[in-house]
């Protein structure tokens, strides 16, 4: 098990390689396979998108990359590092993979600054404060540091969740249906904002959505998930 790198190391964005991935979960009638023969390659600094209807297994793939689902077959590499296979499982906290949840998963007992600084515990206090300020400014919420999640709108919560995921400078960031809880106009505006933020940070990112327009607006690579496999993993044209 590798120890986590200090966040101030500002990890260089890493590429993501997934080969022959099979994922299943246990049911009372035995294991039920949801993803099988899944392959993907995403270059460093690019944004990829898994598109597909609800229940097709795209969030399960994301959770497996983050380290929350065991891999039955195949391998997941982040950069040069093998993080998941049937015999290797790097724990989520040691992967340097940030995850932004569909429900945002903001800690209700911490304010916005506390949430953004959560993953920066190993930094000295001054550096941590500085990084939190930078991140809040990056998502345009510099004046909301003291607000608690329930005092923020849906869009603001979404941006705090993004800032929190970006703050430790992960090698890879995963976004699980990040705009599904927002109304149409806010979603359109934030899609562009998030894309710009990720590009500005040169961040490798994988986005999961069932909205084709959102996928094309954000991603450099788009693939459609069907029957537990990824089809047509192709570059979009800017």
């Amino acid at each position, binding site marked *: 098990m590798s120890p986590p790198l200090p966040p101030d190391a500002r990890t260089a964005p890493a590429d993501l390689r997934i080969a022959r991935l099979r994922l299943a979960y246990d049911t009372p009638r035995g294991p039920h396979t949801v993803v099988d023969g899944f392959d993907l390659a995403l270059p460093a600094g690019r944004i990829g998108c898994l598109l597909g209807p609800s229940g*097709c297994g795209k969030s*399960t793939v994301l959770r497996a990359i983050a380290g929350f*689902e065991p891999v039955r077959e195949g391998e997941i590499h982040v950069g040069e590092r093998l993080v998941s296979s049937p015999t290797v499982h790097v724990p989520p*906290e040691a992967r340097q993979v940030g*995850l932004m*949840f569909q429900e945002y*998963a903001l800690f*209700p007992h911490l304010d916005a600054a506390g949430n953004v600084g959560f*993953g920066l515990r190993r930094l000295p206090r001054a550096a941590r404060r500085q990084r939190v300020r930078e991140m809040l400014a990056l998502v345009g919420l510099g004046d909301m540091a003291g607000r608690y999640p*329930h005092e923020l709108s849906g869009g603001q919560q979404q941006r705090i969740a993004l800032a929190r995921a970006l703050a430790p400078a992960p090698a890879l960031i995963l976004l699980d249906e990040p705009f599904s809880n927002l109304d149409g106009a806010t979603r359109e505006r934030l899609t562009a904002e998030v894309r710009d933020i990720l590009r500005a940070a040169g961040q490798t990112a994988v986005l999961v959505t069932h909205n084709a327009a959102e996928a094309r607006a954000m991603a450099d690579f788009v693939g459609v998930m069907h029957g537990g496999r990824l089809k047509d993993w192709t570059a979009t044209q800017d």
Partner: protein
Amino acid sequence: MPGPLASRLPAGLRPVGPLWRGASVLIALGVLAPVLSLAWLAAGSSLAHWTHLLAHVLPSAALNTAVLLAGVGAMVLVIGTGCAWLVTACDFPTRRVLHWALLLPLAMPTYIVAFAYLDLLHPLGPVQGVLRWMLGYDSPRQWRLPDLRTMAGAIFVLGLVLYPYVYMTARAMFMTQPAHLLEAARSLGETRWGAFRRVALPLARPALAVGVSLALLETLNDIGASEFLGVNTLTVAVYTTWITRSDLAGAAQIACAMLAVVVMLVLLEQHGRRHQRFGSAQRMRAIRPRPLQGAAAWGACALGWLPVLLGFAAPAAYLAWESYKRLSLGGGVSAGLVASLANTITLALGVTVAAVLAGLVVAWAVRHTASTVRTPRWPARLASLGYALPGTVLAIGLLTPALGLDALLARSLGLPGLPLMAAGVVLVAACAIRFLAMPVGGIEAGLARIPPALEQAARSLGETPLGALRRVHLPLLRPALAASALLVFVDAMKELPATLLLRPANFDTLATWLYAEAARGTYEEGAIAALAIVVAGLLPVAWLARTQLALPHVDALPAPE
């Protein structure tokens, strides 16, 4: 919620008149009466009393109480939270049974566990006998365990019985914590332990505060275990000051000091409840227990069962064995014990009827006065405060008004002696006040689930307000009424401090019978009395396990997508 529902009712359909409201206010004031009387009694006595108490009684009793509360608080917090997290976050053999078995010590009144352990761990008892045999010693003079009759022994015994209060609240909180919060912490670099410490635990803090304060209120209420184990707490001091020294004013003054502790604990509990929104702040995908393998699985299993073994199985098995021995050796059951059982059931039935009726009046009146009164819930809040009053405090507070009323009745009706005290009415009233919170809360929750449209439909079909209550609400409230009645009945069966102080002459319940046996150091029939109380106590535990800790959304977890 009573407020909005009632405010939607047109004035003509409002089914509660001033009579209901008046009755509910009277009941609430009845709960307050012992506190006011206590203050009056304490303030009315001479300053010399206070000086004496401050010099000789209060310092040691207060210190003992503080140490006991701190020790029990720490123990219930560690065991309750640890077990709750273990069965929430880990999967291991027997977890599903352990999940509810951890509640079993709730069936054990504190004085019964103390009674059982004193005998079980006696230098000539079975445990020390086996240990000496294993170590090759012949007599207790050569080797014996430290005496249980110490502060540490009292903390150990009370902690083992009271941890379920924290377990229950913490478990309910952990079950509703969204899994993605812990996953977010892990993806931000925290280990499993770190995610528990920095996310799960702070989010559960309000629930833990509620659980600890309930356990500490029970500690403060305890008289039997503390006395058996030789720890002179404030509760014991109240009892001995009144009964041994016949000093009612002194007892009232000590009781006032206890009230200060009660107020602090109630404030802690209220503060905890105020922040409980943490639990359901976000959409829910429950924490999935992580399967443990091999030694870790069996280690978790052993760790989880240890509190059940020590807090329930060992003392219960001991009581069962002693009862079996007594019955099989032809000792039988004495007429006195049978009479105590009959008294216990009569008392518990009386308390149940009184508390459930009073609870119904308060909850019904509160539900229907929201549109006309600015703070409609205060009678319910006040009526529910009795649970925080230790039995001894309640008894002393109730005594003066009860004696006054008794004297008035005796004079006006020409009856001899103290009619209400002798008939056990004062004892029933004290227990009903103490346990009123359960029916008030249960019936309020039950009423909140009945839509106002049902009342309107009944009224539009020609029913009077009382008729609607009888034909619509009472049938729908049956589960809430039954649950409240069960909880009150069993708690009244177990009640010791107030019963000791307020029972009529020559009136014993199973609890006071057991107390007398333990005080005399004779344990012949005590085990049978204790076993009967424990068996009755299992009923509400089974109900709690079914209703409060139902498992479906934890184990039948949906797959992530």
